[in-house]
């Protein structure tokens, strides 16, 4: 009896044969490039604080990074990052699944390369090119100006490191990344306030780390708040964050 149910379950999911993504960032690439081929995404893809396409992701099934669960979906392609869940990926490869690992892009050059590559992998080159054209159009609309000194402040006072995605976003928006990876204290920020503070909206539930961003001593500094999901993964959508920062 149990074997029949299992067979039915597997047969049922086999109809959804397609691409499984096990990483939040590849989830978003897959949603942007080839939503019709999605067999399953990671659970995080539906979280509005982490994922740019959270609403769209809710229309698709999700799967844990667990080899058995993924194999039951019989995907013809598995997308993942090249860190995390490596044991699962190795098991999938042993069972003959094709696994493509993505080097999560941290600059616009890398975003262009990765979007093109994943477009080829998924067989949607034209759509990838289209997304990049739109991204470059958004970036080109950002007005040139003399750089404004800004601090991108993260929970607990950490800041965007040089060479990181947030650093690339700030540069593209004409902001000078003042802290560049230094950890800032509230006193430092109050004593030498930057022309602009950039923060992601804190998650829905409080923590001491995110309360740091709401301390009243920062109230006097001009602050811009970005949707947190835009800071998590680099992709064609990163241009939207740049457009917001450049305002």
């Amino acid at each position, binding site marked *: 009896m149990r074997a029949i149910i299992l067979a039915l379950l597997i047969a049922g999911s086999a109809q959804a044969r397609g691409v499984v993504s096990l990483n939040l960032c590849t989830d978003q690439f897959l949603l942007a490039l080839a939503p019709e081929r999605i067999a399953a995404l990671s659970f995080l893809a539906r979280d509005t604080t982490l994922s740019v396409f959270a609403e769209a992701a809710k229309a698709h099934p999700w799967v844990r990074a667990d080899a058995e669960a993924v194999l039951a979906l019989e995907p013809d392609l598995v997308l993942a990052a090249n860190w995390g869940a490596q044991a699962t990926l190795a098991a999938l490869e042993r069972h003959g699944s094709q696994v493509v690992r993505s080097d999560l892009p941290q600059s616009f050059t890398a975003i262009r390369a990765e979007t093109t590559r994943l477009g080829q992998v998924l067989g949607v080159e034209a759509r990838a090119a289209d997304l990049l054209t739109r991204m470059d159009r958004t970036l080109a609309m950002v007005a040139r100006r003399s750089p404004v000194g800004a601090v991108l402040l993260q929970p*607990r006072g950490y800041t965007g490191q040089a060479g990181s995605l947030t650093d690339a976003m700030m540069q593209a928006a004409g902001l000078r990344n003042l802290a560049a990876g230094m950890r800032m204290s509230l*006193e*430092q920020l109050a004593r030498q306030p930057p022309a602009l503070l950039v923060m992601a909206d804190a998650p829905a539930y*409080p*923590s*001491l780390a*995110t309360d740091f961003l709401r301390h*009243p*001593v920062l109230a006097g500094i001009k602050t811009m708040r970005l949707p947190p999901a835009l800071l998590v993964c680099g992709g064609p959508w990163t241009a939207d964050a740049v457009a917001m920062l450049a305002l």
Partner: protein
Amino acid sequence: MKKQRATRAMIKGLAALLLALVVAGLLLGAGGFGWPAREILVELRLPRTLLAGLIGAGLGLSGAVLQGGLRNPLADPGLLGIGGGAALGGMLAFYWGVSAAFAPALPIGGLLGAGLACFALFTLAGRAPSGPALILAGVAISALAAALLTLALTLAPNPFALAEITFWLMGGLQDRSLSHLALAAPPILLGGAILLRLGPGLDALSLGEDVAQSLGQPVGHTLRWAAVGTALVVGGGTAVAGSVGFVGLVVPHLLRPWLGERPSGLLLASVLAGATLLLGADLLTRAAPMLLPLSQEPPLGVLTALLGAPFLIRIARTVAP
């Protein structure tokens, strides 16, 4: 008469020392030593300094009351799990968004947790517990509170929560604001007022339960108010500063050689000594990253434990049979 003069001198000396530390607290911060801009002073250093003083005062006073009321030199709100219960209550209100919707939920959660721990302690250890019985009950409550705290933090909806366990277990006053002061001050002041009035009851208790009863100081009454006052003081403080141990243990022991054994004579001095001790410890945590190669401040409870643990060993040796 002589003791009274010693008490008065001690109180004057402690008040002067406390005042000096308050000034130092306003002058010292992560930005360096010196008079800061108004908003740094008002929004960061003032609330931090006043919170350290208030919470230390509450812990010192509750330590003196618990040691008198339980007639046990090992009593301390941190050691007995009252601080752990308070941290659990405040933490639940904080991470589940209750205090974000209704700010006073934070100290209310703290004092409910502290109250529950007090109740469990008095039930487990009895009215006049022996040293071992009291400490065992306290260890059990502390361990349970720490375990539940860890469990709750792993289940908390915010992904940063688990990293913040050191704050709840070891305390800290970094980046607290005036709103934290406004939340913690009322329960601490109310609890402190309750505890300061218990002097005669505690003195009578030190003569034994029957004598206390005959002096018109019912034991149950005194202990109940001691528990209520402690829950208010520890609950309010722990909800905004985490669980800081050993202040309540150390303070009365430091004062007794000068002021004598009478519980009522210790209360006011314990307020000042507790404030002085915790503010001094907080100043050391502020100075530590400037003096040592540390990337961040050590938790406040680390410093009080460094001071308090050897003290506890010494006391345990002297009271051991």
